[in-house]
């Protein structure tokens, strides 16, 4: 195999795979979002067939319409679900940053031989099942659960708190599940930081808290940006956490899509929701990619 052929294989194999299984499907989702639901197999019309010929395709293309988007725009339910998702993702990301930063900061300042162990300890829960970790919280948060037993036992509260099936429970689940995704990028950028800068600041009479805000935080900005995107984007489309911890009151858009698809079997509306969610997230996703590419270039 020559150098040229090697180059072609290395680029084309992953390119084709991702084009077929990641890019083309989006086009199909876009087309589906313009279709109508039908009681048939598959459950939508129109279905384009290879043997329809150009005239048949044209006739069927006329059946496509923006009706599903009209349905979504006129229904409070979908708009509320979008707004709730953004609110929970933004609040969750902020809490993650507030909890994750001190952890990452402490890890980066720990003795050098401790650091691999600490990183391992952050990653290990991530390797255990996501579903299990969310499930564990049901037992803790429910009215007769461990948290309420503990608080009642200590005499801190008079009656069990209703935490399960509220937005608070969803936020706890989100923060818990995504903590490693916040801590690791923060740690990576804090660990690389040149510590002599802080010594120089101290020598020049700068108090530690001021040095923290003016040196440490700006230098860890790439980690902050990466961590926030890595959490915010998937949380917005989260399905399992709101379903298990949120109950029926917390409507998030990922779960709405899920219900449209699996319970109502309305594939076109589910697709329209997916398209809107993608439009909402395309900005953050592009920014995240730029960041990722830039960091890898910088490490070169």
């Amino acid at each position, binding site marked *: 195999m020559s150098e040229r052929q090697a180059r072609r294989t290395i680029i084309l194999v992953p390119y084709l795979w991702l084009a077929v299984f990641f890019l083309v499907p989006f086009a199909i989702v876009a087309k589906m979002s313009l279709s109508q639901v039908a009681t048939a197999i598959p459950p939508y019309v129109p279905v384009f067939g290879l043997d329809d010929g150009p005239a048949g395709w044209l006739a069927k293309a006329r059946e496509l319409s923006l009706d599903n988007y009209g349905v979504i725009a006129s229904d409070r339910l979908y708009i509320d679900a979008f707004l709730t998702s953004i609110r929970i993702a933004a609040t969750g990301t902020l809490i993650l940053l507030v909890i994750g930063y001190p952890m990452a900061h402490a890890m980066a300042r720990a003795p050098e031989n401790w650091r691999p162990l600490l*990183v391992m300890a952050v990653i*290990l829960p991530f390797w255990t099942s996501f579903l299990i970790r969310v499930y564990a919280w049901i037992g803790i948060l429910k009215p007769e659960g461990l948290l309420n037993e503990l608080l009642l036992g200590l005499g801190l509260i008079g009656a069990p708190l209703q935490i399960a099936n509220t937005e608070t429970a969803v936020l706890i689940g989100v923060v818990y599940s995504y903590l490693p995704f916040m801590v690791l990028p923060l740690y990576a950028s804090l660990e690389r930081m040149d510590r002599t800068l802080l010594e120089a600041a101290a020598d020049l009479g700068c108090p530690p808290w001021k040095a923290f805000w003016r040196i440490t935080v700006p230098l860890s900005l790439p980690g902050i940006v990466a961590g926030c995107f890595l959490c915010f984007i998937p949380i917005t489309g989260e399905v399992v956490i709101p379903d298990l911890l949120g109950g029926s009151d917390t409507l998030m858009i990922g779960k709405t899509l899920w219900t449209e698809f699996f319970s109502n079997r309305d594939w076109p509306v589910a697709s329209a929701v997916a398209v809107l969610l993608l439009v909402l997230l395309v900005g953050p996703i592009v920014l995240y990619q730029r960041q990722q590419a830039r960091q890898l270039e910088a490490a070169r």
Partner: protein
Amino acid sequence: MNPRSRFLDATALTLGFAFLYLPIVILIVYSFNASQLVTVWGGFSTRWYGAVWQNRQLLDAAWITVKVAAVSAAFATIVGTLAALALTRYLRFRGRTLFSGLVYAPIVMPEVITGLSLLLLFVSVGIDRGFWTVTVAHATFTCGFVAVVVQSRLITFDRSLEEAAADLGATPWQVFFRITLPIIAPAVIAGFLLAFTLSLDDLVIASFTTGPGSTTLPMRIYSQVRLGVTPEINAICTLMIAAVTVLVIGASLATKRGLPAT
């Protein structure tokens, strides 16, 4: 470092790790609870593990999940490693921006979107859903993770080794298998394991792309969890945690490097 900031660091780490580990520890402890009621401690017992062992549906699902994870991780490793090579070695080719977008986007893409779009692809091409559709779907969403892990290793790679081998008459094929691959092997193995666990763990994409007869373990657990918390589920979860822990520790001993961050 002054004592005050050392105290703050210790507090941050203690509270952080307590938050991360307590729920898992509680779950494991209650899997040995003799009582049917999940929150009442009725003494030590392993009866729920016996119940899991009797549950054929669960065992079948577990076996399917492991098969899907192994095959999809193998595909993801090949595709992801090639993508990493393409992105680090070839800084200029047509469509490179789109390509890097396609590699990184699946990492953050909400699973409902990936799952729905793959399902619609399979339906419109007329492929019956089952083992292979889940496997392909999993390979697609995990290969980006493999690419990132391998890329971080390739960046520090000393290319003069490859040039030396080529000067001495090795074909590109030989150079890859005898020089490049052995050097990046720890990252490739780490990438494989990451893809493997992500696949084991996935519920959403599997629910969309699977068919009758290929129900995975997370799907089974999910349908039981929605009906309520039972000690039997705690037992299954504990077994899964034990399996993953053994796997991770074994892998990090094997590569002697620890597993890199995602």
